[in-house]
């Protein structure tokens, strides 16, 4: 896996905020701005969605993105396609090397299926998405939540059609950086999952930075 570093200086960012695990975050990223998400302590899954800021019925599409690039994993050079075949953002730097977009978000109900019927009341990403939508993105509803990106998460697929959740390949300070190709709404759930190795069983904060065009 090729790693690509960025020359952008955090001291020159126009926005810089830490998002704790179990929390949601949303913000408009304007065309030409660069977004960086930093895995501060390592092995933290960051469930992420993008919507066209002006028409949120056009949104990130995992299946269009992997089909158009002919590869399942996201890394530097990946263009994030919308449900209408437009490029929303391009990944321009990546010091982790591989990000998932097949694993989706954890939810109260899917946690029951995956782990145990008594896991229903554990905090999860779908709840975070729903609360963020209900309180800050009121044009959206559950029907608008598609398969998301899991930055820093490692979900290998085998040639035989198997899929597993593996220990992360990320580490403290690794980051992914994206250039917005149009105005987009970023929606993040910093994953609180405690039942699998996607967060090394210890969810931790991440840092979100935005730079204006030079």
């Amino acid at each position: 896996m090729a790693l690509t570093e960025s020359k952008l200086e955090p001291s020159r960012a126009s926005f810089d905020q830490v998002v704790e695990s179990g929390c949601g975050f949303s913000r408009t990223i304007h065309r030409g701005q660069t977004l960086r998400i930093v895995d501060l302590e390592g092995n933290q899954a960051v469930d992420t969605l993008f919507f066209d800021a002006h028409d949120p019925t056009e949104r990130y599409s995992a299946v269009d993105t992997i089909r158009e690039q002919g590869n399942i994993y996201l890394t530097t050079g990946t263009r994030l396609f919308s449900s209408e075949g437009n490029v929303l953002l391009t990944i321009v730097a990546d010091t982790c090397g591989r990000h998932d977009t097949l694993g989706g978000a954890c939810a109260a109900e899917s946690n029951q299926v995956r782990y145990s019927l008594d896991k229903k009341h554990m905090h999860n990403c779908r709840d975070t998405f729903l609360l963020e939508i209900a309180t800050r993105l009121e044009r959206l509803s559950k029907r608008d939540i598609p398969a998301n990106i899991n930055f820093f998460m490692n979900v290998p697929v085998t040639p035989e059609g198997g899929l597993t959740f593996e220990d992360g390949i990320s580490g403290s300070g690794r980051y992914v950086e994206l250039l917005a190709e149009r105005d987009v709404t970023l929606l993040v759930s910093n994953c609180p999952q405690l039942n699998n190795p996607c967060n090394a069983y210890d969810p931790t904060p991440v840092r979100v930075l935005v730079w204006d065009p030079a």
Partner: protein
Amino acid sequence: MPTETKSAVAPFSETLRGGQMWSRVLRRGEALALTDVEGGASVAALFFNAEQPLERYNMPDTLKAQHIARLTAGNVLYSDMGRVLCSIIADSAGWHDTITGHQRADMARAKYGPGTYQALRNDFHRNTRDNFLVELGKYGLGRRDLHANVNFFVKVASDLEGNLRWVPNSRAGASVELRAELDVLVVLSNTPHPLDPAPTYAPKPVGLGIRRVPAPAPDDAARTSCAENGRGFTLTERYFA
């Protein structure tokens, strides 16, 4: 390895020609069989809880619960609410895709040319997106309800680096049968998959048959194929308890 299931499926009573679309509420306890009549078929499909269509087929939940990146016999289709919409009770194609989406009008035009109704009448080049939108519209659903679909009879495999490859998959006579575990709105579009290398627009006919089948027994293959599915069936049965 994909399981080859030899059991007979519902004989088909209706044929979807290439380009055609279809929808129906499949009642709990009914099974829908799709048969690839000539070989090389591809049928794009969406699934909703007919009672509350906000609950619908969820590709990531289906894959991660069963540790799969494709669908075959013994697998189930999960909704986003932890319930089983359908179980695959028979499959002789061995691989059905759900990770590479469907074709829109712009993609079909770029690949096959305009293919207009004016020129071709009812042989015009219908595409999956428009077919889905037409059929969804009949139930008050639309663009926002379009999520990752299933592509029956289609195989797109990856190598260890994640590179995807179209693999010729389905032979004449291959069939797949879905048992509804709750009342499920099924939407089908018999239109070309975007990665199909065929340069001309020539989607193949698909037979559809529906029959009543017994409720899943305690030793049902889909229920017992993994511990996750056992819990998924429990949650589905609680919906009716």
